[in-house]
């Protein structure tokens, strides 16, 4: 026993309960799913072959990636602007801004999706207002298309984009910027040449985070896409519940998982994963 103790730190005893839980009830079935992807309905790489045989599967991939990319660029850009303003203003104003940000962070995704339905519909508030002001004659199709999905997703993702950027910007040494100004650089020169490069780790981390979160997004595309925007997550759920093709679903899940892990690896080289969630800020 004491020999064992010398090799295994007693702290592991505290880690063990959750570690075992995750290994047995989470990792286990995920490995089982990966296994399914090469055995269901028949052993072999048939499921993966479908990727090359069917244009439509590729198109679903492409739709997913396109939407994720636009969402990422949009929310990181807007998030950068918010984070920048928050770092460079008075303490009091900053705390108000943080409050708004966090409140929106915590409002249920379902409540938000519901609100967008009310706002963006054919007879929704936005269309009614625009028509009332005489800006448009016919209602604009804000939802049941990609536009609706993008609005919903970017809106949801902005707070996630802000938090890593905020952590990053707060850690910068402002004296560098002041030195640059003192040496005669203009504000915009200082921003482009010094500030932006220094915040690259934050930008990369928040981009990857948003991209990963968007990849598996289910609620918003399913509601605001109106069937016209088919992303991988919804396609997987159809395979499980309607068409009973576990093999195809497992293949897609496997690819998605692989992509996510690869991105996590890249991300871990830029930033500690835990800071991303605002836990240690």
């Amino acid at each position: 026993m004491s020999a064992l103790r010398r090799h295994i730190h007693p702290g592991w005893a505290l880690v063990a309960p959750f570690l075992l839980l995750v290994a047995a009830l989470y990792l286990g079935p995920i490995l089982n799913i990966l296994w399914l992807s090469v055995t269901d309905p028949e052993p072999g790489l048939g499921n993966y072959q479908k990727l090359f045989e069917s244009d439509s599967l590729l198109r679903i991939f492409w739709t997913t990636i396109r939407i994720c990319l636009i969402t990422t660029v949009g929310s990181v850009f807007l998030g950068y602007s918010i984070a920048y303003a928050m770092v460079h203003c008075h303490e009091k104003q900053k705390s108000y801004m943080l409050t708004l940000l966090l409140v929106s962070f915590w409002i249920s995704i379902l409540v938000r999706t519901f609100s967008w339905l009310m706002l963006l519909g054919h007879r929704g508030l936005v269309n009614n207002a625009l028509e009332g002001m005489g800006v448009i004659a016919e209602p604009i199709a804000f939802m049941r298309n990609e536009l609706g999905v993008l609005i919903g997703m970017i809106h949801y993702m902005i707070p996630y984009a802000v938090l890593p950027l905020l952590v990053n910007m707060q850690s910068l040494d402002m004296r560098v910027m002041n030195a640059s100004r003192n040496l005669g650089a203009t504000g915009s020169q200082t921003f482009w040449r010094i500030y932006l490069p220094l915040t690259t780790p934050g930008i990369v981390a928040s981009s990857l985070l948003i991209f990963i979160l968007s990849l598996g997004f289910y609620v918003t595309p399913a509601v605001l896409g109106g069937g016209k925007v088919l992303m991988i997550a919804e396609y997987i759920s159809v395979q499980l519940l309607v068409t009973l093709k576990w093999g195809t679903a497992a293949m897609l899940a496997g690819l998605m998982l692989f992509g996510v892990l690869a991105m996590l690896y890249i991300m871990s080289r830029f930033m500690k994963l835990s800071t991303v969630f605002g836990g240690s800020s």
Partner: protein
Amino acid sequence: MKTGLFSHFNRAGAWVLLMFLVTPALIAIPVSLTPKRFLSMPKGELSLRHFEKLFSSPEWMSSFFQSAVIGVSTALLATALGTLCAIGLWRVSSKYSEVVRAFLLLPLIIPQIISAMAFYRLWIPMGIIDSYIGLILAHTILATPMVLITVSASLANFDPKLEQASKNLGASNWTTMRRVILPSVKPGVFAGALFAFILSWDEIVVTLFISKFSVYTLPRRMWNGIRENTDPTVAAAAVVLIAITILAFAFSAYMSRRNASKDTA
């Protein structure tokens, strides 16, 4: 750095954006007050009938109750597991512990549809589909990493010498844990518990797969309402949810302020 024109402009933009983040959700408030039977903006007259319907509907009330039970159980379990785990990893502090930490954060970051698939796959043979146990277990696995993060963050500020001092003074491991370590990570534990509760309270994707009818959580009922898209009771439920979110947020802000003022005192 002097504030240039750009900064002013950007700050105004940031405020607009922050408003854009919060205000859309507020549309649920007027919609919930419509006197009509279908989803619409009220014109002139307001009515509380949909709130009345919400609070007198056994279905909605049982969903509130079930979500609360599952959320509280998840928060308790996740907080216990996550706190232990964070302290354990902190004490081990080796390169293995960092690998394990990264591994344990996976449930939080792996796309939820994959988690849903995994639970669905395993819960069927285990016979815990559509049961409290099934949902609480799944939510606990998803929420514990949150606690792990917040408690670890608190531990990062904790001076290991304090633990040593406690032991040198003759305190047992257990006493040290209870009297020295736990009190100093309390803010992290509370934050983690709150996050875990909210995660479970708001979880829909996994819930859609592993619940059927004997367990029917609030998000599940909202989801159905949204898909049906006719009944303003959903709007009333949304308003209640927003109110709960704001209360929980105010509570956590109050707690952290109190902790902060105690530290400076």
